[in-house]
C-alpha cells in the first residue's frame, strides 16, 4: 500500500530549477531518508509536499488522494504533518499548550462554549489534556508540560516540534533535520523516540538528515538528492557506498 506517491515534482525560482522531476514512492509504515549535500533542494521538497510552495509541475498523492497545490492547512488536514529545520515553536505558550494547538482540528469545541465555559468546554478541554499528555509521554516531555516552549533546551525543543506534529494525528510525518544541533546522546534518544512512535502509531516517516549514523541506523530506504534531481535511491548499505553519492558529498 502506497502512502505517498510523488511524480515528476518540480519548481523553479527564476532560472534556478530548485527541484526537478522529483519522484518518490513511500509505502505505508516505511521510514524513508532524504539526504543530499547542502543546497540540494531537500527542504524545498518538504515545502512542496506541505503546500508552502506550489509546484510548477508534478503530482503528489497522499494515500491516493491528490493534494497537489492545496494550502498548508488543507494538506495538514489531509494527514501530513511536518517539523522545521529552523525550530518553529509557539515560544510564549507552554509545552502542553503547544501540543494542544496541534490538537486544534482533532478535538473541537466552539468559541462560544469556550467563552461561556459551558460543560462541553470542560469535558473537551480535559480530553485534550489527556491526549496531549499521551503524546508528550511518547517523546519523554511530560515533565516539561508547564514550562514555556522557549525555555526548553535545544534537543527538547526539537522533540516538542515532533510532538506537536504528531498531535495533528497525521498519516505521514516529515521531519526536517530532527537531529541537527543535537549531541550524540540526544541523537540516540531521538532515534529511540522515532522507533517508538513508529511502533505506537504505525506512522510513515520521511526525514531529512545529515547525521549518517542516524540515517543508516533507522532508515529503511534512502533517497539522495543533488542539484534538485535524483542521484540515488535504495537501501542504506548500497546507497551510502555508491561512488556517485560519495563524490557528491566529498568531491572528487
Amino acid at each position, binding site marked *: 500500500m502506497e502512502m505517498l506517491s510523488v511524480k515528476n515534482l518540480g519548481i523553479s525560482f527564476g532560472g534556478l530549477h530548485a527541484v526537478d522531476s522529483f519522484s518518490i514512492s513511500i509505502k505505508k509504515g516505511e521510514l524513508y531518508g532524504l539526504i543530499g549535500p547542502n543546497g540540494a533542494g531537500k527542504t524545498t521538497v518538504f515545502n512542496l509536499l*506541505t503546500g*508552502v510552495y506550489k509546484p510548477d509541475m508534478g503530482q503528489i498523492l497522499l494515500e491516493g488522494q491528490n493534494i497537489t497545490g492545496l*494550502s*498548508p*492547512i488543507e494538506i*495538514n*488536514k489531509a494527514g501530513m*504533518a*511536518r517539523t*522545521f529545520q529552523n525550530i*518553529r*515553536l*509557539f*515560544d*510564549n*505558550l507552554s509545552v*502542553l*499548550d503547544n501540543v*494542544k*494547538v*496541534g490538537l*486544534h*482540528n482533532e478535538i*473541537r*469545541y466552539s*468559541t462560544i462554549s*469556550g*467563552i*461561556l*465555559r459551558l460543560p462541553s*468546554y*470542560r469535558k*473537551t*478541554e*480535559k480530553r*485534550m*489534556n*489527556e491526549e496531549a*499528555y499521551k503524546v508528550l509521554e511518547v517523546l519523554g516531555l511530560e515533565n516539561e*508540560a*508547564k514550562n514555556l516552549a522557549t525555555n526548553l533546551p535545544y534537543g527538547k525543543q526539537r522533540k516538542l516540534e515532533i510532538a*506537536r*506534529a504528531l*498531535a*495533528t494525528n497525521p498519516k505521514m510525518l516529515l521531519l526536517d533535520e530532527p537531529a541537527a544541533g543535537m549531541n550524540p546522546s540526544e541523537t540516540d534518544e531521538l532515534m529511540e523516540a522515532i522507533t517508538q512512535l513508529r511502533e505506537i502509531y504505525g506512522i510513515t516517516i520521511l526525514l531529512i538528515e545529515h547525521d549518517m549514523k542516524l540515517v543508516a541506523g533507522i532508515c529503511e530506504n534512502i533517497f539522495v538528492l543533488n542539484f534538485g534531481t535524483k542521484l540515488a535511491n535504495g537501501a542504506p548499505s548500497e546507497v551510502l557506498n555508491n561512488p556517485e553519492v560519495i563524490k557528491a558529498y566529498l568531491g572528487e
Partner: protein
Amino acid sequence: MKAKLLNMNKSTRSNLFTVGVIVIVYTVFQTMSTTGNMSNLLKNLLVAMCYYSIMAISLNLTVGILGQLSLGHAGFVCIGAFTSAFFSKIMVNTIDNTIIRFSLAILIGAITAGIFGVIIGVIVLRLSGDYLAIVTLAFGEIIKNVLNVIYIGYDSNGLAFSMEDTASLNLMEDGVVIIKGAQGISGTPRNANFTIAVILLILAYMIISNFINSRSGRAVMAIRDNRIAAESVGINITKYKILAFSLSAALAGVAGVLYSHNIATVQSTKFGYNMSIMILVYVVLGGMGNLRGSMIAAVILTVLPEYLRFLRDYRMLIYSIVLIAVMLYNWAPACIEWRKSHSLKDLIGTVVGKNRKEKKGA
C-alpha cells in the same frame, strides 16, 4: 492526572482573583462615594475608569494576544458610542424600562462595532507590523471624520439623512435632529453609572480571559508566535485573526456605549488618534497580553492627569515625564523582582495554601 487538574483551575483561579479585586475596589469606591468621602473630581471619573479599562483590555486582545499593532481602536469606541446613543435617543419615549433599553443599547453598540471590526479586519489584516498600524490609524480617522459630517433626524415621515447641514434634512415641524454633525449627539439619557460600568468591565474581562484560555485563544496566540508553524498544524489563520480583531472591536464598542451614556454630549472629534494612542499607552504600560496590568494602567492614568491639575500649564509635561519614568522602570528586572516578592496574589496564595495543608493534616 494531578497536573492536569491544577492546569484546569489555573485560569479559573486567576479569573476569580481578578474579579475579586475589582469587586473589592468597587466596594471601597462606592462606599466612599455614598458616604461623601470622595471628591467630586474622583466621582466624575468612576465610570471613565471603567470604560478606559474596557478599551485597554480589548485593545490588549489585538496587540498583546493577536500580536498586531492597531492604532484605530478609538474608531470602534466611536461606533459603539454613536450607534448606541442614537438608539437610546430614538427609543427614549418608546421603551420606558431603562434596564431593557440600556441593555439593548449595549448590544447594539457591541454588535455594530463588531461588524465594523469584521469588515475592517478582512481588509487590513492581510497586512502586519507598521503597515497594519498605519492602515488602522487611517480607518480610525475615517470613522471619526465621516461621523463628523453626518446629520440624521426624524419626523413623522421617518428618518432623514444628510451630509450637508441640519436644514437640508427638510424635517417637518415635529422633527428632531439626532446627530448634528460636528456637534454630535446631545441629550443621550445618562443611564451609565459606576455599578453598571463595573459589571460590564467584569464581563469584558471574563470574555477576553476565557477566550484566551480556550481552543480559539490558543490558536490566536499560536498565530502570533509563529504563523508558518500555525499553518502547518492546520490552523485557519484568517479566521482566527478576524475573530480576535472583531471581538476586540465589539468590546471597544461596549466601552463606547458607556462613554456616550455617561456624558451629555458625544462628539466624534473626541475619538481621534489621540485616544487610540492613549489606549495603546495603557496596554504597553500594563504589559502586552497582561489584562490586569492594562486595567491598572488605565485606572491610574485616568486619575493622574486630574490630580496634576494644580500644576496648571505644566500638567501635561509632568504627566509625560511620569509616563516615561514608568515605562523605563516598570519592567526593570529589579522592579519585577520587587513585584514578585510583594505580590498580593502570593500573599493570599500562601494563606490559602497554609489553610489547605492544615486541613489535610487534620
